[in-house]
């Protein structure tokens, strides 16, 4: 992956920059020793690493404002960082940048059950937002699988989803307001405890802008009352096509499950060997979960099972207890770990129209043979967000490149059938150069024009989202 050459003029400013940052921040908040900055050299896309020039760990919005104002004045690029769990390289530094980490900003600022929101500093982890309200039986709905570690800042930057977004939506549908610092240090308040924008929906465009428009320091998040209960049903089918039709029929029947998860045979076998959840040995497996009181769950599961039976399932296992539910989820939740036991893997994130599921799975199988790399599929079937896991050997020369080429072909296929490159992980550097496969030059230009407005010098999170060739002129300006 190509990154811009570090600018020697900026590198030469390091001493002066550190001096100015230290004047504005506590000493422990400025990390400039080369050994220590190495801790920030990568996020969860670990194949790419580059220590930043400096890392800063502010505690307040005012400190973030001071940092950005200084960097803006000195023309130093800034890479915002939540918890560093991006799978797309969204927080990958450049050698001439300042990493701005929000890890110390973890306070809950306001909890309001009557109006159903919390206001938090954005370094707080996703799961601990729910943690702050669960004693009153409330929760924060978006649940990316990294939710134990990932920060709200990163969730907003990537518009993160999760397994339950079929019912509850993704981050943008649960974000009510932000305090954000622009690159020139200006602090803006957008949205709040009320609904919808008065003028243009700036909040909507900030969410998912991958830290390129501003640094979000505080967020107002919608919280919901927990359902009375939830239970899944597991179904096995002897073809991907049939499983795909079953998903479509469930949705058409008016049942809206909270999650519909899909696993194919390679993934089922790997997780079975690893977690021994007792899954059937079949081509495709669905886990469908519904919520409500016991009687409500029974009413919905009865309808779902009736639909499933029409598709001649090889296995149909309805959970009747918390223990059985846990066993059904066990394999799904260990899927990534199980695949990781076999080999290194790359996790893709393209989304396709649900109707294209059988075709896309068949094509991925064919490509897997062509490339000679195994692939397992585990994903959110209700919304078409696929997660093909391509297995490769990082120690084998050329295997990573082969895997990346295979991955790119899968993502191009997603676009070809009417889908997109990324459903919830973000573009980062990983899918940056594929953007031209989904967007025409003008489509990219109008997106870049939005960045021109928020960050005229193009200093925030450089070299992400847009192909370098497309953004060259702007970054050099």
């Amino acid at each position, binding site marked *: 992956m190509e990154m811009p050459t570090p600018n020697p003029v900026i590198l030469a400013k390091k001493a002066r920059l550190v001096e100015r940052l230290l004047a504005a921040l506590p000493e422990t908040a400025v990390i400039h020793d080369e050994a220590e900055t190495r801790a920030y050299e990568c996020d969860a896309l670990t194949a790419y690493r580059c220590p930043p020039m400096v890392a800063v760990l502010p505690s307040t919005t005012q400190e973030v404002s001071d940092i950005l104002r200084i960097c803006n004045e000195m023309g130093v690029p800034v890479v915002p960082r939540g918890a560093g769990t991006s799978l797309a390289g969204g927080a990958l530094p450049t050698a001439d940048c300042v990493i701005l980490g929000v890890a110390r900003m973890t306070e809950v600022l306001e909890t*309001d*059950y009557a*109006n*159903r929101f919390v206001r938090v500093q954005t370094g707080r982890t996703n799961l601990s937002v729910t943690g702050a309200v669960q004693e009153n*039986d409330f929760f924060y709905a978006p649940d990316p699988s990294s939710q134990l570690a990932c920060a709200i800042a990163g969730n907003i930057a*990537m*518009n993160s*989803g999760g397994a339950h*977004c079929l019912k509850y939506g*993704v981050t*943008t*549908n649960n974000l009510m307001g932000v305090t954000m610092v622009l690159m020139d240090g200006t602090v*803006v308040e957008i949205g709040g*405890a*009320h*609904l*919808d*924008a*008065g*003028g*243009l*929906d*700036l*909040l*909507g*465009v900030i969410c*998912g*802008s991958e830290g390129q428009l501003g640094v979000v320091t505080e967020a107002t998040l919608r919280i919901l*009352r927990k359902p009375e209960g939830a239970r899944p049903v597991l179904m096995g089918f002897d073809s991907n096509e049939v499983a795909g039709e079953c998903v*479509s029929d469930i*949705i*058409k029947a*008016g*049942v*809206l499950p909270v999650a519909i998860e899909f696993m194919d045979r390679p993934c089922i076998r790997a997780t079975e060997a690893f977690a021994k959840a007792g899954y059937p040995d079949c081509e495709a497996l669905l886990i469908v979960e519904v919520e409500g*009181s016991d009687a*409500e769950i029974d009413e*919905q599961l009865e309808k779902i099972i009736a639909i499933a039976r029409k598709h001649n399932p090889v296995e149909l296992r309805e959970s009747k207890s918390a223990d059985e539910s846990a066993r059904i989820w066990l394999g799904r939740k260990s899927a990534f770990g199980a695949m990781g036991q076999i080999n290194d893997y790359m996790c893709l994130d393209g*989304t396709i*129209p*649900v*109707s294209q599921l059988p075709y896309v799975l068949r094509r991925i199988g064919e490509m897997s043979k062509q490339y000679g790399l195994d692939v397992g599929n585990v994903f959110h079937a209700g919304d*078409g*967000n696929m997660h093909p896991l391509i297995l490769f050997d990082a120690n084998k020369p050329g295997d990573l490149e082969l895997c990346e080429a295979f991955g790119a072909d899968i993502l191009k296929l997603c676009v070809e059938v*009417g*889908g*997109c490159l*990324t*459903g*919830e992980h973000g*573009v980062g550097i990983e*899918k940056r150069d594929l*953007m031209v496969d*989904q967007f025409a030059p*003008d*489509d990219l230009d*109008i997106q870049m024009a*939005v960045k021109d*407005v928020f960050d005229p010098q193009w200093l925030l999170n450089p070299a992400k*989202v847009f192909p370098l060739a497309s953004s060259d002129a702007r970054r050099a300006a």
Partner: protein
Amino acid sequence: MLTPRTEAELAEMVVGANRPLRIMGGGTRSVLPDQDSAGLSSTGLDGITLYEPGSLTLVAQAGTPLDKIEAALAAEKQRLAFEPMDHRALLGTTGTPTIGGVFAANVSGPRRIQVGAARDFLLGVRFVDGMGRILKNGGRVMKNVTGYDLVKLMAGSRGQLGVISEVAFKVLPLPEMTVTLALPDLDDAAAVHAMAQALGSPFEVSGAAHWPGQGTFLRIEGFAGSVAYRAEKLRGMLGGEIEQSTQRWTEIRDVAPFHGAEGDIWRLSVKPSDAPGIVSRAGAEAVLYDWGGGLVWLRMAPGTDLRARIAPFAGHATLLRADAATLARLPIEQPEAPALAALSAGLRAKFDPRGIFAAGGVPAQVAAS
């Protein structure tokens, strides 16, 4: 009135425009009276491009009449879950609402509190910017974080950034059953409190409105057994009577109590628990609370500056209906903080450098900026 029949023709018309254009769909949601700017309507762009009930997605040209969309959905037992209101009776407009207009104005009804706003259902747009470029953003899949989310930006942009030519959106199944729990005789504060209790319960309330003089209403939708269970649970918490009719929700959605009545109409978006206090400062002639109190409709004496009466408050107040003199004097939309106004102006300048879209349902001071 310009009415392009194709997207390419639309782009040519924008390129050829030498003065500001009033961008509209069916013109049913316009606040400002007709001005001398030329109109450009999307009504010639008509037709459902793709509908996959099993994927919960529909793609349509922007000028497709809303009732055509709703009929296609009803045939598959689906609907626009965000429940867009019909503005005609309230604003005294005529014409046919279009699907593009619904999204361009981000029009949502009572169910917004449960399922989200129009903007939350919009998956993709095609539009023509002020330079006549045909652009697209988003797509037709439900999860998509590929590049910046200009879909949200276009939703509610009211023709200021471009002319939407096609929309792709998510739809949801129709419920098997709907009932309403009607609570009588509550004052505003008690009503907002009761609605907060209901919305903070696990019983998935899909509408919470307070209509002074009529009652406080909570809607429950879903499968028959589930609806009966949840309605009974809520009645146990709050009392009240269970109604079967759904007519009341159409009336609340379209602000029926204000139809045919004189006076200015304001729409207020606030934190629900703030609403009763704000209303007591407003001195309105009539009030209707929706969204659990988060949306308040006020009918005011003509020419009243509501914002001045209730200041300071957090949220936004929109002036929807008033005479020309009042519309010339008071901003239609809540004035933005200077830093945000600068960002919005910057975006308008990028999307429409020639100021072609600076007319129509856009507040005068915005159009002038």
